[in-house]
């Protein structure tokens, strides 16, 4: 077989920055604290303690809720973008992308100052005599932060698929008696599934692993698996437990991705 030299930088990159770190994490998750080579599953056993299971469950739940909200908000946005005339499309996309150029942390801090008890929203509501609402440090605030930050990752894959959709297919559906709703259900949505699935992937993955959003907008109450891992590495220096949590998180993501790609192939079989 011919050797393709141009692949080597890529392979080197993968080995140094992906494979070796993962192997290291795996190693730490399987050995006793303090290094050495005495294997143990004690770190993994700790993951299944009720306290930590509830953290994992909460992470998955909040990520799922955010993903669903992103889908419900993002799909119509993607449709509007895809159906707007080319000139407007460009400016709409720019409007959508510009906030993403700002630092992720800065945007999240901005939400803090909007939501806090003496924040802008409550001050505004105060003018109408409404008591300050406690919005910050709630699960709602965490979901809001996730949706706000990850919405573009839902919109763009769907937009890309919708834009390439052959308009004559929509005319064909209409021609065969399908009203706009039926056309959407039977033609537009099924054909946009690849975009929907990659959007779900691109929102769910960062949402389930985030620790910044939950830390800033959730305060201490909403520890997610990302926060837990961060604490093990940076505060309690329990690298073994942190590593086993990371491995479990990877397995969760792999499983959910597998599930999604499986449902994709099922859909191909038949809709009607």
């Amino acid at each position, binding site marked *: 077989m011919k050797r393709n030299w141009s692949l080597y930088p890529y392979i080197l990159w993968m080995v140094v920055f992906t494979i070796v770190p993962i192997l290291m994490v795996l190693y730490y998750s399987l050995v006793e604290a303090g290094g050495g080579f005495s294997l143990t599953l004690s770190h993994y056993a700790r993951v299944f303690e009720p306290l930590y299971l509830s953290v994992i469950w909460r992470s998955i739940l909040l990520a799922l809720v955010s993903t669903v909200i992103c889908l419900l908000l993002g799909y119509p946005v993607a449709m509007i973008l895809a159906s707007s005339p080319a000139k407007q499309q460009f400016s709409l996309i720019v409007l959508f992308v510009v906030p993403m150029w700002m630092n992720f942390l800065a945007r999240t801090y901005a939400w803090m100052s909007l939501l806090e008890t003496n924040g802008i929203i409550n001050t505004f509501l105060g003018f109408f005599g409404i008591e300050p609402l406690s919005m910050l440090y709630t699960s709602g605030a965490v979901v809001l932060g996730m949706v706000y930050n990850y919405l573009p990752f839902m919109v763009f894959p769907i937009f890309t698929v919708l834009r390439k959709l052959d308009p004559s297919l929509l005319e064909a559906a*209409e021609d065969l008696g399908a009203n706009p709703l039926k056309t959407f259900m039977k033609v537009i949505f099924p054909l946009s599934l690849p975009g929907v699935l990659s959007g779900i992937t691109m929102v769910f993955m960062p949402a389930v692993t985030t620790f910044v959003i939950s830390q800033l907008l959730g305060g201490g109450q909403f520890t997610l698996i990302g926060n837990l891992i961060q604490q093990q590495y940076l505060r309690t220096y329990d690298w073994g437990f942190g590593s086993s949590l990371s491995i479990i998180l990877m397995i969760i993501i792999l499983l959910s991705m597998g599930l999604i790609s499986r449902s994709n192939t099922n859909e191909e079989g038949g809709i009607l």
Partner: protein
Amino acid sequence: MTQENQGKTSQEMIRLVDIHKEFEGETVLNRINLSIAKNEFVTLLGPSGCGKTTTLRIIGGFEHPTSGDVMFDGQRINDIPAYQRKVNTVFQRYALFPHLNVYENIAFGLHIAKKDSKEIKAKVKASLDLVDMPGFEKRPIRSLSGGQQQRVAIARAVVNEPKVLLLDEPLAALDLKMRKEMQLELKNMQKQLGITFVFVTHDQEEALTMSDTVVVMKGGIIQQIGSPINIYNEPENVFVADFIGESIILEGRFLEDCLVEFAGRTFPCVDKGFIPGQPVDVVIRPEDVDISADPAAAMLQATVTSVVFKGVHYEMLAETDQGQEWMIHSTTMAPPGQIIGMSLKPDNIHLMKKEVQGT
């Protein structure tokens, strides 16, 4: 406006009344008036940009006229959306749903209409038989050839038993042999199903082969409506004459009823009613020129400049002593350089009002 009713009582199916259509201030259809009878095979024919597809899309409900009325079975349907119209369309590039298989594509309209599943099954099967593709139900669209996709597109449209079937250049993507086959099959299908066909094409031969009525269009204006024979033999203007088949177009002068002057001499003809002395366009079909090896006895003399063998006939170019070039289609061949005689029968000389320059 159909000039021949083929002996049937013609019941009107579609009428377009003074249809005007503008896209961003540009007129694409100008005063289109057209009546299509039940069970008629009507072809909209013209070069690209002539408005034929727009006319079809207005009937289908995919475009809306700027002004004018669309009448369907006696009712005005301007405001009825496409999905409520009793017409179905075979799209130019088929527009089959790629996420559905052959069965699901054909059953799409029947499912929407909430037909009983047994009935759907039977109808899909019957329509696949009709397009000569039995047993293709489970095949994915991707696995079909262009011709097969085309047939599925037809089956998907006719399975709904529309009153009118619209076909937007459905054969354009097929190779020549397949196209010829499909032309005949479509014609047979139309007779068999008893559905009104409105067919759009830029291929004049296709139009002549299949249609009961041909509507020739140019620049958003209907140039002529008539049977294929009528359109071919009695073109109403130089554009139609030139677009339908080959023609020799010469400048002439009308002398008096049944007498015209061109190519340096007078000819007896059958046209009447022009003003004596009026300049006219003279249109002659290349196959109507009779050639003989005895130039002296003929009406005109010319020198053959080129000969091309076309299969059924020879296509020759001959130059008259006045320097005009005539195209001749003949089964007898005269070699280049030979002087031939050319004669014309009076009813093969077609006189037309001179076109105003630039239209």
